[in-house]
């Protein structure tokens, strides 16, 4: 573990990059995913089709290919992003498909009577969704959403292969220089991921208790 003490500046850079990637992509994909889920239950068929196509396309494509697209294909078409920006876009697109499915499962768990009651009160589709359905949907969607975000934290490691210096790239760089210390370095990097993911799980438990239905 001496390696990490010697290279603590580099470790901090890598750790904070992983954290930043996960936090920004997480926030964007939560908003985008909720929007996609809303489109998927909208009364207008083309919007439903669009949202379905988006979800199915991104959910069933390997993340490396999504990265490859934003890092190499779009620049060849004239849209060049910074590597970190490209990573955030790739991670957000990919994760939002999973968020959309988690939120949709939450929406489906809200009984039809709720939406019908809201409609009979004269609420529009967007009011119905935002005031009545989604608040209830998120309660049931919290456990799957947290799983999605934990997966996101680990998926940031793919960015290490595409020009971003984060924890996974750090492990490769350090194992090359300190080749006698490979196992300690990999264990250390795994601990860093645990440090990010375990609190997320704790948060999930806390949120679940806080918003539990008083039945």
């Amino acid at each position, binding site marked *: 573990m001496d390696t990490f003490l010697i290279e603590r500046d580099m470790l901090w850079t890598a750790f904070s990059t992983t954290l930043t990637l996960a936090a920004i992509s997480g926030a964007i994909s939560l908003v985008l995913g909720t929007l996609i889920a809303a489109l998927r239950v909208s009364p207008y068929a083309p919007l439903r089709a669009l949202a379905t196509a988006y979800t199915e396309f991104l959910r069933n494509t390997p993340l490396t290919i999504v990265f490859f697209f934003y*890092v*190499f294909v779009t*620049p*060849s078409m004239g849209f*060049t992003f910074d*590597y970190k920006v490209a990573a955030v876009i790739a991670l957000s697109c990919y994760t939002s498909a999973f968020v959309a499915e988690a939120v949709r499962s939450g929406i489906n768990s809200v009984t039809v009577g709720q939406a019908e009651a809201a409609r009979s009160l004269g609420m529009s589709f967007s009011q119905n969704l935002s005031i009545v359905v989604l608040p209830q949907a998120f309660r049931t969607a919290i456990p799957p959403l947290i799983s999605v975000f934990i997966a996101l934290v680990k998926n940031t490691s793919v960015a*290490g*292969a*595409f*020009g971003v*210096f984060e924890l996974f*790239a750090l492990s*490769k*760089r350090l*194992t*090359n*220089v300190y*080749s*006698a210390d490979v196992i300690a370095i990999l264990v250390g990097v795994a601990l860093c991921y645990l440090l990010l993911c375990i609190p997320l799980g704790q948060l999930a438990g806390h949120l679940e208790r806080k918003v539990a239905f008083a039945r």
Partner: protein
Amino acid sequence: MSKPLNRRLFLTGTLGSAAAVALAACGGGEEEPTVAEVDTADFPEGSTMAALAEAGTLTIGTKFDQPLFGQAGPDGNPVGFDVEIGKIIAGALGIAAGDIKWSETVSANREPFIENGQVDIVVATYTINDTRKEVVDFAGPYYEAGQALMVLIDNEDITGEDSLAGKKVASVEGSTPAQYILDNHPDSELVSFDTYSNCVTALINGQVDVVTTDNVILAGFVAADEENLKLVNDGETFTTEPYGVGLAKGDDDFRTFLNDTLQAAYDDGTWAKAWEDTAGVVLPTPEPPAIDRY
């Protein structure tokens, strides 16, 4: 080739490669290095050479993804300069090229494979250095590579190692050339990817200014795309990477034998021929490096 038809259909792939080997063997050694007539009694009793010659087979670790040095084709058999060196060594032990077992070694598993005895020798663009000498021994070097720079064909402002300041330099994360840039050129920006092909894509896209690694790897990419890529100063190198044959630590008799075999290949021209048939297609034939009998 007189197998029942159903088995033949079922094993087409295996038979295909077996046929290729058989054909090569029938070729009368025109392509393959000559196999010495070896009597096992020629080797000291109990030596590694005697054991290998007796067994009639040699397991060699090499790279399967390194153009010009060790690259496996669709049939799974590697070709390249490292592979030819392996065949020369096998030939000196009286083992035909067809009896060599090729085992893929990547950079990270070369030492473990030698230490655990999973391979007899490693010929895999394996740079000799002191850290590695603590766990394995090296014969050779049989080639000296060096770090070089590759740019787009119309690039004029990168003229060498000294003009990297402020430039975006691509290499593979966790490789020695990438570390060299970090240590010696902190004023340039290292952009690291997972494979060299991704580095080249970024270069073609204009996302980085230069790709750096060993000259022999870059030469393979230039050969594949001469219209867009070139080596800076015709492949001028600024580090030295002596490639050696890795073997188990402490087996001094075997190391002496390997060094003698390489020296003989230098002297009788088989080394130069092996080079010209493989990497020599795109790189000039160098003088063989002096063997380091440490």
